[in-house]
């Protein structure tokens, strides 16, 4: 769907993107992650052709990116805004027409969206008469009204209350099911785990991690487990196939965090422990995206 190849973008005295390459599959929800100033917005602006890269290429559906492609993209920037003194309905029609839609069709679809998101009464209202959340909803409609094949959402949930954030999340998933590819830039890792199929992590202008969420999580497993058991407290002993990292009394018995020795398997651990204690719970610790994010960025 979108192939970003060796993009370099240099501003006067700082490099915003340094040889960044990312592949985004058709029909996925792709998370573009990174701390502030990592280069996410620069990359998004290049995809939207707001700015051009110094070198490198982008291919949209196997075609080199050209001006006409922006009509198939929808962009919701992090910093949002509407004309303060223009009626919401007119405003959405205007933005839709700028994306190349014909006026009548735009009006029809806008009406549909207004109904769906329960904002029928806002058509003739000006943004200054609406709450911030309402404005955000209107802006979301403006972003998706032309049914873009590629939807780029920068922090889409900021500014929404939990109810509306959930409503928007549902819409995003539905758009994705209908075939839209979605690039999703955010800091909120819990929504990444929930929505994204693949991610790329940018830090200091470089891509430092990318791939399928499940693969990355798999890669970051480090054979640590949580055990709960009753009986005598186990301690680190020579010859045990594991190393105990933490151990503390629990409600019943003890709770321990242990790491399997390199090359070992869970079965070996269980085999070793079964004669000694009464196991009540064994669970692998899989790092959250948040932990992966922090770990990767701080290591970098």
């Amino acid at each position, binding site marked *: 769907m979108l192939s970003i190849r060796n993009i370099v973008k240099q501003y006067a005295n700082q490099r915003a993107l340094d040889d960044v390459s990312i592949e985004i599959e058709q029909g996925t929800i792709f998370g573009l992650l990174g701390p502030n100033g990592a280069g996410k917005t620069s990359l998004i602006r290049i995809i939207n052709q*707001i*700015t051009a890269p110094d070198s490198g290429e982008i291919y949209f559906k196997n075609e080199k990116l050209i001006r006409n492609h922006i009509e198939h993209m929808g962009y919701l920037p992090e910093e949002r805004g509407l004309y303060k003194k223009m009626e919401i309905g007119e405003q959405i029609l*205007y*933005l839709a027409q*700028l994306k190349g839609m014909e006026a009548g069709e735009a009006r029809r679809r806008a009406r549909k969206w207004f109904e769906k998101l329960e904002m029928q009464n806002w058509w003739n209202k000006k943004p200054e008469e609406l709450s911030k959340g309402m404005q955000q909803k209107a802006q979301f409609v403006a972003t998706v009204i032309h049914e873009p094949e590629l939807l780029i959402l920068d922090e889409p949930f900021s500014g929404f209350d939990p109810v509306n954030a959930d409503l928007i999340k549902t819409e995003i998933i539905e758009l994705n099911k209908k075939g839209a590819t979605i690039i999703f830039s955010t800091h909120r890792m819990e929504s990444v785990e929930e929505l994204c199929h693949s991610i790329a992590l940018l830090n200091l202008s470089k891509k430092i991690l990318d791939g399928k969420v499940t693969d990355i999580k798999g890669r970051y497993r480090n054979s640590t487990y949580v055990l709960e058991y009753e009986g005598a407290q186990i301690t680190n002993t020579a010859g045990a196939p594991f190393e105990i990292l933490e151990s503390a009394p629990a409600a019943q018995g003890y709770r321990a965090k242990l790491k399997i020795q390199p090359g070992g398997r869970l079965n070996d651990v269980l085999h070793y422990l079964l004669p000694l204690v009464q196991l009540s719970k064994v669970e692998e610790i899989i790092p959250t995206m948040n932990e992966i994010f922090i770990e990767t960025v701080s290591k970098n």
Partner: protein
Amino acid sequence: MHKILLIVKREYLSRVKKKSFLVATFLVPVLFVGMITLVGYLTAKQGELGDKKKVVVVDESGRFTGKLKNASTLLYTFTCNDIVKEKKQFIDSGYDYLLYIPASLTGIQLLGEKKPNAFTGSNIEDALTGIIRQQRLLESGIDTAILAKAQKPLVVKSLQFTEHGLKDSQSGVAFAVGMAAAFLIYMSLFIYGSQVMRGVIEEKVSRIIEVIISSVKPFQLMMGKIIGVGMVGLTQFLLWIILTITISTLGGSILMKNSEKAQKARMEQVRSLQKENGAAMTVTNGDTAAAASDDIGMSTILSGIDSIPVTLIVCCFLFYFLFGYFLYSAVFAAVGSAVDNETETQQFMLPITLPLIFTFMMSQTFIINNPDSSLAFWLSIIPFTSPIAMMIRLPFGVPAWQLALSMFLMIGGFIFVTWAAARIYRVGILMYGKKASYKELAKWFRYKE
């Protein structure tokens, strides 16, 4: 192209639909005509409305007693008291001024508590000089008929060599037309240029800019805005002209009746003054002179309008209005893009407006008096100043090659400035919280896309 049209449409409609547009469009002509009428009325009634100064005259020479006639703002009273006494009692006398004429006629003084205004002194001087000159001539035994002849003013008619032979050239009308056109252009560059700037700041501050330039190129947005606001300007001008003509024709017909009466009254006054003044002048002489000078006034204005190439001026006005506006509004757009709010624009405004203000000030004094001087030539050639300077020069006649060069440079300047402004604009609209300095702007200008 289609997208620029969409932008033009929005920019145009969103402004024209505003209440403030309607108010300005309808109120300005009313105020304008009202102001002109008021000024005209007050000028006509100056004699009645202006305060009259009472002047007590101590005439030791005896030459002026009874001859110095009350003028519209001056009332003379003659006294036989000597000057020392008059000076003493002047403060409580209720007179505004004390005019002291010594017997020798040297050292004539005008004394008063307050400074006399600019005209009082010269009015009195003129009146005294007139009287004494006439007396001296009569004393020398001059024929009264010769004296009457000598006092008749001469009229100079100015003619201009043109391709079609000699033509009347009336510089008074040229003066007025040039000033009016230059003033309109000067005003509109400011009004509509700053509207463009405010529009850019609005888009930037409301953050809608990023959404829009993900659909259209910054250049398209900038041009759309400039054209849209320009059309608002043309609409407003057109409505102003139509409304002003309508209101002034309506008001004019009412005013005419009044002014005719006033005219008659004034004529009457002039006649009686002349009668008394020139003891030797016959009544008929004064009458015809007054009538003749009135006739000359009207016909010169009419022929003056005739002598001005109206079509050329209208076409040039439109040309310089549009291209001057395009040029300046592109600069205004660049400034708007570089700042985060309107107060920050101050540092950039002065260098932009300086050439305009300079040219406008020069045009009122220097250019209009020396329309063919080399300074006037250069100002009317340089794109930043030519819209104003050329409009001033045009009614006096400008060689075709100069006009062509000026227009050519205007178009070239417009293209160059718009290109340069667009380079700053495309970067500026995405920059927030950065204090824009000239150095910063230069950096933006050099950025690749």
